[in-house]
Structure formats: C-alpha cells, structure tokens
C-alpha cells in the first residue's frame, strides 16, 4: 500500500502495527472507541480496519490517491471508524478525554483507546490532557504509547530527552504497564487486565520499521518511500515471518 502510493512514514506504521492489530482484534468490544493521535500511522490503522472487514480491498487501494477518503493522515468526514482528522500531533489525547467525559456524563459504557507516539510528547498539549485525564480520573481512557525511540529528525532521547516516559506518566497519576510492543500476547494481557482506580497507560517498547531488517531502528524510514527493490526485499522478509 505504501509502496504503490509512493508514500513514506512506513517506519512509524510498522512500529505500531502489532499494537493496532492486537487492540482491534483481541481487546476492543462493541462500545469501545479508538482514537489515533499519531496520525502518520494512518496506513497501519487502515490496514487494521481492512483486516477487520471494515474497509474493502478496493478502498485500501485508493490510499493517498486523488479523491480518496484515506489520506496520508486521517481526514475529516472520511470513514466512520476514524472520527477525527489528525496529523498535527498532540490532539488525540484531548479528543479521547472529551469522548470519555461525554460517555461519563451520558452514562454510556465503553472505553476510549488512544494511540500516541513517543516523540509526540514534545507537544505541551499532551501534558495538559494528561493532567486533565488524571485529575478527572477518566478511567475510560486508555493510553497506548508507541515507544519506538525515533522521531522526525533524530532520536527521541537526543531531540528532547524525556528520560522515562513511564515514570512521568506514573507521576501524573496514571497506572502504567510496560510491554514489548511486538509481543501480542503481552499486549493483550496488559490491556485486558482492568486498571485499579486510575486511568491506564500502556507503554509499548517498539522498533521503528519492525519486521523489515533494513528499516529497523533507522531514522530515514520515518519519511522515505520504498524503491521497487526495497519493497520486494521487505515483502520477502515479511513472508518468511
């Protein structure tokens, strides 16, 4: 899909894919909602929705093409499963908090899962949302952090070193679980065990470009599209998995 469209952002899609697939296939129930905050992982979300039968193969083929509803980042009024246009970072968590608060006020069931990147925590708005979620004890919100360690123009530790994001989230009052973000059983177990009395964050250690050896942990795969040769190599590697 990314190859055919000549689109980049593949690295941050592959790091999030196991989280997205496990969450949608094994964890989420009817009343639950999902908010993508790292909008550049739109491709991984579209593929996940396709795997659930919510997007047709032909729709998926329109990705990044003229007239598509599947933009490089989710668009407004695109498809019902993706309620918000996101892409500018630091919006999803506040939106998820609002949805959860709305459920609370209306007495409606269900959780709101929100997937964030690690570089995204450079944005101050996330810390505002975190304070809000912790203060209002919005237990319906579940944060998933794709901790791949790389952002747009450097390693997260070198751009604005956060130290331990898990510790910071704990300090803000969240219950934090740390997992290997490519161990689907661990992800499932961590998300299925209900939190005690606080909102929960799943901090998932992931590998940017996961599953494709020449992409793994390489900064350039935040942006670069694949050549035909690289695509062929990646497909062969994936088939061997």
């Amino acid at each position, binding site marked *: 899909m990314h190859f055919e469209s000549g689109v980049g952002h593949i690295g941050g899609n592959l790091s999030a894919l196991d989280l997205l697939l496990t969450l949608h296939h094994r964890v989420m129930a009817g009343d639950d909602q999902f908010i993508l905050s790292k909008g550049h992982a739109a491709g991984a979300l579209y593929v996940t929705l396709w795997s659930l039968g919510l997007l047709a193969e032909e729709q998926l083929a329109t990705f990044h093409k003229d007239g598509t509803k599947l933009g490089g980042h989710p668009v*407004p*009024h695109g498809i019902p499963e993706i309620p*918000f*246009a996101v892409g*500018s970072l630091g919006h999803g968590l*506040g939106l998820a908090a609002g949805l959860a608060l*709305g459920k609370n006020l209306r007495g409606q069931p269900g959780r709101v899962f929100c997937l964030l990147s690690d570089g995204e925590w450079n944005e101050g708005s996330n810390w505002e949302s975190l304070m809000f979620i912790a203060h209002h004890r919005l237990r319906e919100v579940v944060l998933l952090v794709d901790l791949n360690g790389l952002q747009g123009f450097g390693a997260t530790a070198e751009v604005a070193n956060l130290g331990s994001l898990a510790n910071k989230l704990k300090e803000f009052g969240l219950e934090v679980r740390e997992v290997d973000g490519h161990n689907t059983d661990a992800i499932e177990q961590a998300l299925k065990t209900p939190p005690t009395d606080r909102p929960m964050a799943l901090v998932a250690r992931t590998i940017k470009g996961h599953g494709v050896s020449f992409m793994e942990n390489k900064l350039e795969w935040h942006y670069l599209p694949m050549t035909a040769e690289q695509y062929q190599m990646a497909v062969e590697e994936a088939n061997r998995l």
Partner: protein
Amino acid sequence: MRTILTRTLVSYARESDFVFLTGDLGFMALEPLREVAKERFINAGIAEQNMVSVAAGLATAGLRPWVYSIAPFLYARAFEQIRNDVCLHNLPVFLVGNGGGYAYGVMGPTHHAIEDYGALLGLPNLTVQIPAFAADVPQAVLRLMAAARPAYLRLGRDEKPENFVVPPYAPWRRILSGQGATVVVVGPLAGGILAAAQVLPESQRPTLWVLSELPIVNAEIPATFIADFQQSGHLIVVEEHVVQGGAGAALAHALLCTQTTPRRFTHRFARGYPSGRTGSQVFHREECGLDPASILRLLSNTP
C-alpha cells in the same frame, strides 16, 4: 454581558446535552452556573488547548459544549484545536471570548482581542456572533444553539444609552435614522456612537446600522441598508478590530461583488498601539479614532 450570559446559560444548564468548560476564569460571574450545572460545569484549568480538544470530543459524544475564557487565550492560544478538532468536523462547540476589542484596557495588549474574528473567520463552518448590547446576549445564544455548528461569541461591555429600547437581535439592525452618512457599527461601540449621534439635528444625523453576525452573507444584506448608503452617498464602517479580516474589508468585498458600492467609503478600525502606551478601553479607542467624538467629527466633515 457576562452576567446576562450566565443567567441565560443557567436556563439551559439542566438540558441533557449541556456542558460548560472554563479555562479557570469567571470568578464573581460564573458561580450561579456552576451551582446549577454541577458536574457539567468543568474548570479545565489554565490549559486552553486541551480544553478545546476535550470540547470537540464532548461534541462528538453528542453534547453541545460551551467553552469560556478571556478571548485571546481561547482563539489565539488554541487556534489549531479550534481549526482541526472543532471546525474541520463542523462540531457544535460554542466558544465564548470575553473582552472583545480593547475591553480589558489597561490589563494590556496580551488581554486584548483586536484580531479575533478575523483570525477565526478563515476557518470552515464557523459563525461569529457579536452582541452590541447586553439585551442581545440571550438571543445570540439562541441563534448559535439553533445553528448547532462551530461558533464564537464575542462579549464586551454593554454601552446602551438610557431609554434606548434594543430591537430584536438580528445580523443587521437599523437603530437610528437620519439624513447624514450611513454608519455600520460592530459590537458595543454602537452604544456610545448612538448616544452621541441621536442628539444631532436630522440633517446631520447618521443612519446607524449594527452588524452582529459574521461572515457577511451577501444575500442577507438588507435592501434598506443598500438604499440608505446609496441615498446618503457615504458609508462608514466602525469596528474595534484590525483592518485585516475585519468587517469593513468583508463588507467592501461583499458590496463590490454585488455591484452596489457607495460613492464614498470610510473605515474606522483598531490600529493596534500607535503610541506604544497602554490605557483604558476609551484611551485605545481614542487613539484609533473609534470613540464617539471622533466619529462625530468624521460625520461633520461629511458633505
């Protein structure tokens, strides 16, 4: 206008889709609403970006949130959240900016809102309501609730002259008739200009229109207004907002597009801080030629 807004919202606070967020402001004003709205009155803290995103989430969950702050802390600080989260999705989020124009006076330029509606009107789906008088507020609230789409309510201080009976709220209202120039005023400035103009002899007295809703819809520009400025020959627009994105530029554009232009056009607008000094709202208006005395001088120079 805050007091009457509070009173108005109290009457809606028990509705199932009501929710109100404030950015830690409203001391000595919003307390009655907090009492009635209970858990639906949320002090979101000094965190406007999150507050607007939360409001968009609430609106998506089926509520109709009100979001309150001092105007610039809302439209300027949280501009991207208003743009992406609220306007792109056409959500019924009602933003209330207190202190339109120079209303916060000597509190300083950080608290002024002189480019608010210009900044916001570039966004999709958003409508701006600018009550001129406190009596307008309940109807402005009704109007934006009925539209159920993104809205910005610009509040100021009521300057209604004594004994003036405010006509029902509408995008365009004629509040004074005379044989002088045709003047369009945006917002509470209308009160002071009305008080000064209504005592003039009829030959010099302007016809005064109040414009309260933006963007201007060309088809809704009243024929009587067009007749007024065609007869007087001089159209004056007065607003406490910078020229860029202001109502004067929008009206000039609308009239050019509809090919009904006045012979003479004058625009009085907020000029920022020409002396570099700060003072009361009256001080800033005087610096910009927006005060009633300046407008009277302009009217007396009208042939």
